[in-house]
């Protein structure tokens, strides 16, 4: 445990100095700042207003860009260290492979989660200061979603990272995974739906295996279902289960998915040649 924390701590320090981390923090912090400057909190569109509207926009953008950020920055953590022979030296000390691997995972999780969460927390603080009403329910749900998103994509990234031999390859795979989850699955399912080959329920269940789809639906699940922004999938789901059940599912399932991928990543890491 001591070694695991040591590795997590050092990885954290190293990440915080890295350029990608600075850009990452600026992007999410900047997003919130931009929303305030643009006066999102004051506008009244489609029944959303104030901070809830701002948070919704924030989470919707985050659902799209967080995965790719997490993937491209994390996917090189093991494979990059392997490529550059850093692993060879660092692992010449009596550190077990599981301490090393899970330490890296823990360090990365904090680096990835903190900026997106802090940006949202900042929005709440600044909003309160400006006299807006704080939508606590939405804030807590989105905290859960950010947590689940970070876990899911971090897990996938570590899996890819230990699976592939070079970090170039890892980068290519990250883009593929992102585009695939972002668009391809939906496009494929829509075309299936149009051909009427499968039942709607089945198609929607498949759609929900995709963590990005779950996040999309969950992000709007606390809002009034009468609102038009809700797509057919969301409508169907919220019709099928209770709201709270879906909220729990949308946090637990992606988190577990991430842990599972990270775990398989560890198995691969321990079974393969290290350098």
């Amino acid at each position, binding site marked *: 445990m*001591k*070694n695991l924390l*040591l*590795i997590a701590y*050092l990885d954290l*320090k*190293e990440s915080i*100095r*890295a350029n990608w981390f600075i850009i990452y923090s600026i992007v999410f912090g900047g997003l919130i700042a931009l929303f305030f400057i643009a006066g999102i909190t004051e506008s009244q569109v489609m029944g959303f207003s104030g901070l809830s509207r701002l948070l919704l926009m924030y989470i919707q953008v985050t659902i799209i860009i967080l995965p790719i950020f997490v993937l491209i920055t994390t996917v090189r953590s093991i494979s990059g260290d392997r490529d*550059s*022979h*850093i692993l*060879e*030296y*660092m*692992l*010449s*000390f*009596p*550190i*077990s*492979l599981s301490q090393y691997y899970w330490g890296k995972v823990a360090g990365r999780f904090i680096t990835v989660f903190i900026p997106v969460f802090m940006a949202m927390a900042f929005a709440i603080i600044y909003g309160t200061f400006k006299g807006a009403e704080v939508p606590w329910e939405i804030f807590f749900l989105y905290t859960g979603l950010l947590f689940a998103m970070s876990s899911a994509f971090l897990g996938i990234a570590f899996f890819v990272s230990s699976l592939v031999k070079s970090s170039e390859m890892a980068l290519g795979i990250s883009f593929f995974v992102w585009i695939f989850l972002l668009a391809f699955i939906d496009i494929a399912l829509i075309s299936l739906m149009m051909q009427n080959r499968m039942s709607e329920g089945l198609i929607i269940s498949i759609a929900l295996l995709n963590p990005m789809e779950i996040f999309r639906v969950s992000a709007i699940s606390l809002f009034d279902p009468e609102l038009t922004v809700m797509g057919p999938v969301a409508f169907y789901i919220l019709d099928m289960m209770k709201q709270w059940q879906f909220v729990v599912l949308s946090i637990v399932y992606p988190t577990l998915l991430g842990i599972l991928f990270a775990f398989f990543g560890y198995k691969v890491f321990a*079974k*393969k*040649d*290290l*350098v």
Partner: protein
Amino acid sequence: MIKIENLTKKFGKTVSLDAVSINFNRGDAVALMGANGAGKTTLIRLIMGYYHPTSGSVEINGLNPVKERVDILQSVSFVPQLPPPIKLSLAELISYICKSSGVKKEMIFEYAKEMKLDIIPNLNKSFFQLSGGMKQKFLIAVSLAKESDIMIYDEPTANLDPKARDDFYRLIKEKEKDKLSLFVTHRIEEVQDIVNRQIYMDLGKITTDEAC
């Protein structure tokens, strides 16, 4: 101390190590030589437990270096062929080494001083920002400070100036008694004084193994 039996390592179709059997004992100071690509680094990586053998076995004090890496590495010092571009600062790297291996910080400073490397002004620099020779001096200082029974050096003097080489060999000579040390080298003249056994490799096999 190290018992290697019928050890083979293949990468795809390349046979990097071909059914090697050899023992290394306490008190051995070995020069490991051979042309580029002969399999020296491969052999060392198998000893370090980085590679899974294709067939055959490595035992260090009766333990398997892949499965019992933590126990074994407690008493192994290793300096790789090329200093890696570690991004941690020297201070962080030192804390990693000291905390993971119980090495005393003062010892690293002490040996760095012997190697004419002044650590203090560089503590907040990233390791990869040091010059090639400074990196190597630092890794050597760490390897000595670790007080290991087994010391493995993969061409440690490649980037060192002649003076630093002399320092290195002098320190090794003081240290190596009752230990096992392995030096991969291309210049036998240089290590003549500190070794008592010479091994030549070629095409993944050991061709000669003699005392000297």
